């Protein structure tokens, strides 16, 4: 069920995604961490408390914990992190089969003496590697910058927040895997991935505008994990983490099973 050659080949082909995504995401997180001291000042936090609650919720901002590095990173930084990593993960997942069909390489790859399930899982393993490396580098960048220019009281909480965001991103990848067998264009796969993550983000952001529409957040994967709980040090949202992981695994294995039985488009 795992083929090293397919894994390494996919990893080689994903090297630019790995490089660009890791650099962009790590730099972005470093920038957020770098600004930490400026935005965690008391006067700024007081100002935030005057903002509409709906706006604060849209960007995961909890003024009560904004006076800390952890609280600041749990806000907009976390949202941006999941947005970018989630889009990349969904794109990789949804392009697993679609890209091969779109680039007409499917005839060469899927007639190799490697089972379809092994091809699918080996490609997914390389995607997991790319997403994991990007997530680890981003976490490291934010912590290193935080230690250098700000006050990081609880590095473990920051790492846990990024780990939570990583799991949510994997859930987006799972949705991509579930969809990829039905797609025959890489552009469609990319558009759907970006669209799905943005819609998910929007549903979560707008759900806080009114109590009457709060339920729409249930349709968003961003709603799976409340990282402000981690930032406060209350607990780790284990259920959200578990559901995220299950969505990833269900999408991955469901997509693999569908692919193993479907015709491959010419």
């Amino acid at each position, binding site marked *: 069920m795992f*083929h*090293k*050659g*397919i894994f390494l*080949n996919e990893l*080689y*082909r994903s090297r630019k995604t790995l490089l660009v995504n890791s650099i962009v995401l790590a730099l972005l997180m470093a920038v957020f961490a770098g600004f930490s001291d400026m935005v965690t000042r008391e006067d700024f936090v007081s100002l935030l408390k005057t903002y509409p609650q709906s706006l604060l919720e849209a960007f995961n901002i909890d003024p009560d914990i904004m006076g800390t590095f952890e609280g600041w990173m749990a806000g907009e930084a976390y949202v941006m992190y999941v947005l970018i990593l989630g889009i990349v993960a969904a794109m990789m997942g949804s392009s697993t089969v679609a890209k091969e069909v779109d*680039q*007409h*390489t*499917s*005839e*060469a790859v*899927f*007639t*190799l*003496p*490697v*089972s*379809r*399930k*092994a091809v699918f899982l080996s490609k997914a393993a390389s995607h997991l590697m790319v997403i994991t490396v990007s997530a680890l580098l981003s976490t490291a960048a934010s912590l290193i910058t935080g230690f250098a220019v700000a006050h990081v009281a609880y590095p473990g909480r920051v790492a846990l927040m990024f780990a939570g965001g990583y799991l949510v991103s994997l859930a987006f990848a799972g949705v991509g895997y579930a969809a990829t067998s039905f797609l025959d264009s890489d552009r469609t796969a990319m558009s759907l991935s970006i669209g799905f993550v943005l819609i998910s983000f929007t549903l979560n952001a707008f759900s806080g505008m009114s109590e009457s529409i709060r339920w729409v957040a249930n349709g968003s994967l961003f709603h799976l994990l409340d990282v402000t709980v981690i930032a406060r040090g209350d607990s780790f949202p284990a259920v959200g983490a578990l559901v995220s992981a299950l969505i990833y695994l269900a999408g991955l294995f469901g997509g693999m099973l569908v692919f*193993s*039985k479907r*015709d*491959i488009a*010419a």
Partner: protein
Amino acid sequence: MVSSECERVIGLSAISVRSLTKYYGRTRGIENIDLDVEKGEIFGFIGPNGAGKSTTIRLLMQLIFPTSGTMRVLGEEIRGDNPRLRRRIGYLPGEVSYYSDLTGRQLLTFIAGAYGLEGLGRIEEYSERLSLDLSKTVKSYSLGNRKKLALVHALMHDPELLILDEPTTGLDPLMQAVFFDMIKERRDAGATVFLSTHVLSEVDKVCDRVAIIRNGSLVSVSKVSEVPGRDHRRIEVTFKEPGNLIERFDLARIDPDVVYEAGVHRFKVSGEINDALRALAEHPVSDLIVRLPSLEELFMEFYKDDNAAETNGR
């Protein structure tokens, strides 16, 4: 209950399909195909675009799955994804596309790994014979070079069965000759070759038997030398007297479909040709050619007749 004759055929068959049908939704791909390709033969598979050649090949390569019917390849029944069977097959697709950012060597090393091959022995040997530079990236390859790459891919693991879809497209005549030598070598080593092509002269040149497919159904399977109409003769006559002489010499009594083109009168004659020659000798002849029809001519005629019948039927 399978008859003993059937069992014998299946035992000797590299490919054996029964009532093979594939529909894409409501669109017909192929319908009720029965076909046996014997081990060790070079089998030609011809038909116009959309006839069902690629559908048949894609079914054999497990890229798509049948709507109904059975397929046995190299003694194994295909039921879903069977990578172990694919290891014994060399496949050359009609349209060759590979990962464009890899070099030829990187790509073939990756493919060799999938086949569990160690080293690049056969790859280097075949690449050299086909004058293929493996150090260049796939995207820099011409169509011909991509075809050579696909040929090395198909042959590198010494497969028992070669399934080739339009193999010579893009190859220059010199490389075509090298390719046919390689194919014959594989056949001599005991491999079976299933060759789908539009170039009928190739079938004439290398195939033992040929199947003709049309509108998703097999219409003929025979030895190349026994293709229907192959025993007919083509007679091309130039009379000393210039111009179209069909009416004046009453040439329609030799062949009602006689045509006059560029100074030559062309006849198709079946059976004995003595009567035709006698009738022609009544007039002064400056040149006369009697020959067997090419497979291409028979193929064109076959489809022309069929299309005409279909048009009239509407």
